[in-house]
C-alpha cells in the first residue's frame, strides 16, 4: 500500500514535469490547419513550422547570437570565478567573508534596477545591440552563482595531493595538470552548465539592450515573433523555435543531472 503510494507520486511528478514539454512538441508538429483543434496530441504530423523558422533570417540569427553570447559569458564568468573561488578556499586573507556576502547580495539584486543606466551607457558607448553589451551583464550577474558553487566544490578537493605530487618529483605545472585539474574539472564543468543556463534563459537584458538581429537572443526573438498579421500570434513558429532551443539544453541537463543537482544545492545548503 505504502509502496503504491510512492509509485503513484513518482508518476505524478514525472507527468508534472513533462506535460508542457510534450505539449509544445506536439504543437510544433501540428499542421497549421490543425493548430486550433484544442487537442493535446497532433492528429497528423508536419515539419512545416520548422522549415518556416529556418527559412526566415530572424531565428537562425537569434540562435547564433544566443549560443555565442552564452558561451562567451560562461567562459568569462567561470574563469574570473575560478580565481576568486581558489583564493577564498585556499588562502587566508581579511575581507573574504565580505566578498562572499557581496556576491550573495548581487545574486539577490533586481536586474531591472540597472536596466536604465545600462541602456543609457550602452547607447552612449555604442554597446547597445552588440554581443559585448549582453556578455558584460551576463558575466556579472552569473559571477555570484559561479563563485559560490565553485567555492563549495573546491572545498571538497584534497589539495594536499598537490604537495604529495611535488614531493614525488612532479613539477608545479605537472602537479596542477595531472593532479589538481582532474579533481577540479567536474566542479568547473558543473558551474559552467549552470552559468550557461542562466545566460541562455535571460529575457530582460536581451529585450532591453538589443533591437535587431545583431545581438537579439532567442528568448527575446521568440517573444517578439510576429505572424502574418500584427494581431495574430504565430503559434506554430513559436512552438517550433521553442522546441529547438529547449531540447539541447534539456539533454545536457539530463546527461549531467547528478552533477547539476549537486551544483544547484552545493552553494546554497552546504555553503
Amino acid at each position, binding site marked *: 500500500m505504502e509502496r503504491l503510494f510512492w509509485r503513484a507520486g*513518482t508518476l505524478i511528478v514525472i507527468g508534472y514535469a513533462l506535460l508542457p514539454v510534450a505539449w509544445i512538441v506536439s504543437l510544433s508538429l501540428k499542421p497549421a490547419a490543425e493548430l486550433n483543434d484544442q487537442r493535446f496530441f497532433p492528429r497528423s504530423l508536419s515539419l512545416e513550422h520548422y522549415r518556416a523558422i529556418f527559412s526566415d533570417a530572424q531565428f537562425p540569427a537569434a540562435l547564433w547570437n544566443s549560443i555565442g553570447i552564452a558561451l562567451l559569458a560562461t567562459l568569462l564568468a567561470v574563469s574570473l570565478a575560478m580565481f*576568486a573561488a581558489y583564493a577564498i578556499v585556499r588562502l587566508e586573507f581579511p575581507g573574504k567573508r565580505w566578498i562572499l556576502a557581496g556576491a550573495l547580495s548581487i545574486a539577490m539584486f*533586481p536586474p531591472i534596477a540597472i536596466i*536604465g543606466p545600462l541602456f543609457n551607457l550602452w547607447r552612449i558607448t555604442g554597446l547597445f545591440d552588440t554581443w559585448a553589451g549582453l556578455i558584460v551583464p551576463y558575466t556579472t550577474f552569473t559571477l555570484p552563482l559561479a563563485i559560490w558553487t565553485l567555492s563549495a566544490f573546491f572545498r571538497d578537493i584534497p589539495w594536499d595531493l598537490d604537495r604529495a605530487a611535488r614531493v614525488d618529483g612532479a613539477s608545479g605545472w605537472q602537479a596542477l595538470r595531472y593532479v589538481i585539474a582532474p579533481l577540479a574539472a567536474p566542479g568547473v564543468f558543473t558551474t559552467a552548465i549552470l552559468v550557461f543556463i542562466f545566460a541562455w534563459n535571460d529575457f*530582460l537584458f536581451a529585450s532591453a539592450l538589443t533591437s535587431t538581429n545583431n545581438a537579439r537572443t532567442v528568448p527575446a526573438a521568440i*517573444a517578439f515573433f510576429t505572424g502574418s498579421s500584427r494581431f495574430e500570434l504565430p503559434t506554430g513558429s513559436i512552438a517550433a523555435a521553442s522546441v529547438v532551443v529547449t531540447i539541447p539544453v534539456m539533454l545536457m541537463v539530463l546527461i549531467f543531472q547528478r552533477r547539476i543537482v549537486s551544483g544547484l544545492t552545493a552553494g*546554497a545548503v552546504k555553503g
Partner: protein
Amino acid sequence: MSDGSQSERRLGWLLCAPALTAMLLVCAYPVLYALWLSLHRYDLRFPQEWTFVGLANYVSILSSPVWWQSLGNTLIITIGSVTVELILGLAFALLMHRAVFGRRTLRAAVLVPYAMITVVAALAWKFAFDPTTGFVNALLGLDQAWLTDRGSAFFVIIFTEIWKTTPFVALLLLAGLTLVPQELLQAARVDGAGVVQRFFRVTLPLVKPAILVALLFRTLDAFRIFDTVFVQTRGAQDTESVSIVGYNTLVVRLNLGLGSAVSVLIFLCVVLIAILFVRGFGTPFTQRGERG
C-alpha cells in the same frame, strides 16, 4: 611567517580583484548612476529638457495609483507562488527522498522545468490555456478566456511560476532532508511517535534552515518577476508587476528619470524584504559566510 601571510593576503586580493571589479562596475556603479538619474527630469524623447528636479520623480511615482497597483500585483504573485512552491516542493522532496523506484528518473524529471527557458514555459502555458489553441478548456469542459480576466490571468501567471520553480525548491529541500539523521527518526519511532509527529517534531525543525534559504531565494526571485507577465499578458488586465512598470517607463517610454526612480524603489523593496527576513528568522547566510 608574517611575510608569508602578507604575500598570501596580497595574492588573495589579487585573485579576487577581476571578479570584484566586474561586480562593482556593472552593479554598484549603475545603481549609483540610477540614483543620480532619478533626481533629474530626463526623457530621451526630449533630451534638451534635462534638469535637476530633486525628489519630484519619487513624489509623482508614490502618488500614482499605477505604482501601488503594480506593487500589490507583485505581492499577490510573490505570496501566491512562493507559498504553493514551498508546500509542493516539500512534498516533492519527501517523495524524492523516499522513492523506492526510479530515483534517477525522478531527479531527471524535476530538472526539466529548470532547464526550460522561462519565456518558453510561459508561452507553452499561455497556448495551453488559450481558448482557441489550448487543450485546457477542452479538458475541463470550460469556455474560459483565461488571460482576459484579471483573476484567471493571475492564476495562469502564478501557475506558470509554480511549475517552473518548484523543482528548484524541491532540490534545496531534498539537500536539507538528507542531513536528517536516520537514527533520530528511528529513535522517535521507538519512542512511539507516529508518522505525522515524526514529520513535525523531528524532520521539519531539522530542515528549517534549508526551508529558510529556499524561502528567501524564491521570495526575492518572485518579486522581480518579469518574463512570465511580459509574455502572458504584457501587464494587461491589471497584472503589471513592478518590473514591468520599470521596463515600460525606461525602455518603452524612454523616460530615464522617472524610470530610474522606479528602479531605485524596486531596489529598496528588495533590500527591505531581505532585512525583514534577516530580522524575522535570523540569518542562515551570515553563519554560512563566517564558515566560508
